[in-house]
């Protein structure tokens, strides 16, 4: 097990290196110039050249790449070309709102989707199953921003139960923190509830047709016991996979929700950085997303062994 983990962590290094190189090259070869964005339309060509020089953009691409890779090897992601602030500081500032939103969303999604999927499988073909599946189609089809606006209208504007927008760190008080996460988490959880519920249903239905389920029933085990001890556990591997993928998708794909609820997270940071051609910030965030993907995949692989004893590393 330990050797597997070490091997996987080491194998992530070349992956992340390739990601770093590709992101760097794609950014530098795409249109846009941070110096022009910063200096504005009145800047003379001499001023622009001086600005590029001071930002290190005049150096050959390969030299810039080597310097950047050397810096990140030492844990230094540089400074934002636009704000002049350390990139690590900017990313860490935005990481916590995204993590808070993603964590509450995935907990909510799993807590709701798992029983819904099981109930749908259990009641396969009956009205409850159809209701859950119809709901999942709706949840998957309606854009998150529409759900967000409707929730703001009802729960923030009409009922006044929650703030319209914003994020407060938990240090400002749990009430402030939680009240601002309720609406965005619920809005964002809809597609994930739909996705996970469908996967749970499909896999539970598949497992329920297996011989060992029939054997368990023949031995007199209750339906609840069959479901929790046999069906769910055997259906867990693909469910864990989709939950892992959902977490990764959530962290890197919350930009719309962050915008609608004005949560200053990583999604907004990377969008703003792209529009301003703030290369160092974009590079750092994409690298962070890639690292998260790699480690979520690793965690999912390790979890397989928990649910399926046949899987050993």
């Amino acid at each position: 097990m330990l050797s597997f983990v070490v091997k996987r962590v080491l194998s992530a290094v070349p992956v992340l290196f390739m990601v770093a190189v590709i992101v760097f090259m794609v950014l530098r070869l795409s249109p846009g110039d941070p110096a022009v964005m910063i200096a504005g339309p009145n800047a003379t060509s001499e001023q622009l050249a001086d600005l590029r020089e001071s930002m290190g953009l005049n150096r050959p691409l390969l030299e810039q790449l080597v310097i950047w890779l050397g810096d990140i090897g030492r844990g230094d992601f540089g400074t934002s070309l636009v704000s002049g602030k350390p990139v690590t500081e900017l990313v860490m500032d935005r990481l916590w709102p995204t993590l808070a939103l993603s964590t509450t969303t995935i907990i909510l999604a799993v807590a709701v989707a798992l029983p819904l999927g099981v109930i749908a499988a259990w009641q396969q073909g009956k009205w409850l199953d159809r209701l859950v599946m119809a709901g999942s189609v709706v949840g998957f089809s309606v854009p998150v921003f529409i759900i967000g606006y409707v929730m703001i209208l009802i729960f923030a504007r009409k009922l006044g139960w929650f703030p319209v927008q914003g994020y407060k760190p938990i240090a400002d008080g749990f009430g402030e923190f939680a009240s601002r996460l309720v609406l965005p988490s619920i809005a964002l959880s809809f597609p994930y509830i739909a996705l996970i519920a469908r996967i749970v249903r499909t896999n539970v239905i598949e497992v329920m047709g297996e011989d060992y389920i029939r054997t368990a029933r023949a031995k007199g085990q209750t339906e609840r016991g069959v479901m929790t001890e046999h069906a769910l556990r055997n259906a867990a591997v693909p469910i864990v996979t989709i939950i892992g993928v959902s977490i990764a998708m959530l962290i890197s794909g919350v930009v719309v929700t962050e915008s609608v609820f004005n949560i200053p997270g990583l999604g907004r940071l990377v969008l703003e950085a792209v529009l301003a051609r703030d290369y160092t910030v974009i590079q750092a965030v994409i690298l962070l997303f890639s690292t998260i993907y790699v480690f979520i995949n690793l965690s999912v692989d390790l979890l397989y062994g928990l649910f399926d004893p046949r899987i050993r590393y």
Partner: protein
Amino acid sequence: MLTKSFCSNLLKPTMLALALGTVSGAAVQAQTITAVMHAPLRAVDPVISTAYILRNFGYMIYDTPLALDSAGTPQPQMASWEVSEDGKTYTFTLRDGLTFHDGAPVTAEDVVASVTRWSKVDKTGQVMASLMTEMVAVDDKTWTMTFGEPTGIALIALSKPSGLAPFIMPASVAATPVSEPITSTIGSGPFKFVEEDYRPGVSATFAKFEEYVPREEPSDGMAGAKVVKVDEVVWTTMPDPMTSLNALMSGEIDFLEQTPHDLLPVIEGNPDISTRQVKKQGSQNLVRMNHTLPPFDNPKYREAVLLALGQQPMLDAQVGAGSDYSQACAAVFGCGSIYNYDYRADDIMNAHPEEAKAILDEVGYDGTPILLMHATDLATLNPQGPVIAAQLRDAGFTVDMVSMDWASVVARRASKATLADGGWNMFSTTNVLPDVANPIGFIGVAAGGDSAWFGWPDVPEIEELRMAIAQTADVDQQIEYAKKIDELVIDNGVMVPMGELFNVNAYSSKLTGLVESEAPVFWNVEKAE
């Protein structure tokens, strides 16, 4: 089954507890204006970037030597002035009580250093520097500016309200080369920047600068007393306009700098929300052609474009048909400026596709596509491209509209290459009216070839007239020169004015005393409990 009463019983106490937490926190909070500005603040050097959010930031924490009153006349702000009899030497004297936020007194040396740095970047400042023979600090409170000829440029430049305004910072900070953005936020303005609360792109906090000594005259435009009547102003960023409006209606924010015109009906009639149209914070649409590449190196084609385009369809697409928040305007320097002029108004304001077609027939246009850059990520600019393309096509042009984000337009418009190598024929944008109303500084009329704004028109007569405006202090003479520039700009296709649209501030009815000015400012604003 979950019943409504169950939900109410469970949720209401919870929400009440959360609300109580908020209220009890608010009771000890300072009086704060929370404002959503048009863009996030991500940098702090208001001199090297023309981003309007940095201009607004500058007005919070810095002061300017002079300022324009509501009539557009330069008035003393940090300093008063005297002019020598020959009109060549201006002597400025700083008023008493001016200190920087770190407690150091503001000196003439600080002003000289700040104006020197600013004039390396700003167009008006560059013209002023080119005419100036000397600028020296005579003593701690006095500095002089000497020119080769009698001129009014010193007053125009030092009271410039928009674009890059001449903000005064400590000399040690102003010594920073313009190739290096400053990181200091020490100013002498009515607000102090709260560095520890600054989150680039998210929020910025400005606290009342208790030691600020306002002028004694009443507030008038950017001039007069700057009296801070709240404890702090917090700028917060909200990328979604609908969310901003919901937050305003819920009382979570107090001020929304730019309200999307299509959302205005949502707040109309709401007694808790006030709106105001700020014409001085309006914008002029313009179309720019690349004079260095075919076909627009030929003035006939530029004339065809002028005739092909009409203003109303673009304004309708931007603010809605029949809206009061826009106006067709033929004047190059804006209809609200002292240089308002209706030269060839019909040609500019209305589309004449048949006349444009006739010109294209005359010059034998072969249908080679015109590359039009279309910025899609800014709400005001997004409608421009399709309207321009449609009007040009109606007149017989073949248009290749290339859609991209604004950053790509900014990068590509700097290219003088051929189309095959990444060049361009045409783009459109907006400039705020205070910038437009300045014939010396307005980049849209500069026509010095390589030194001109993107498109690089080369009309020496315009440059001579711009310099002539800078060299005279006679306002009537300046207006005459500006009218000649207007004519030359239109006849040479330097730019095509495409109408004006006006900004709408939406704000809590608790706010009073908002200043009518070229930039949104927060001095003199009161917030009722």
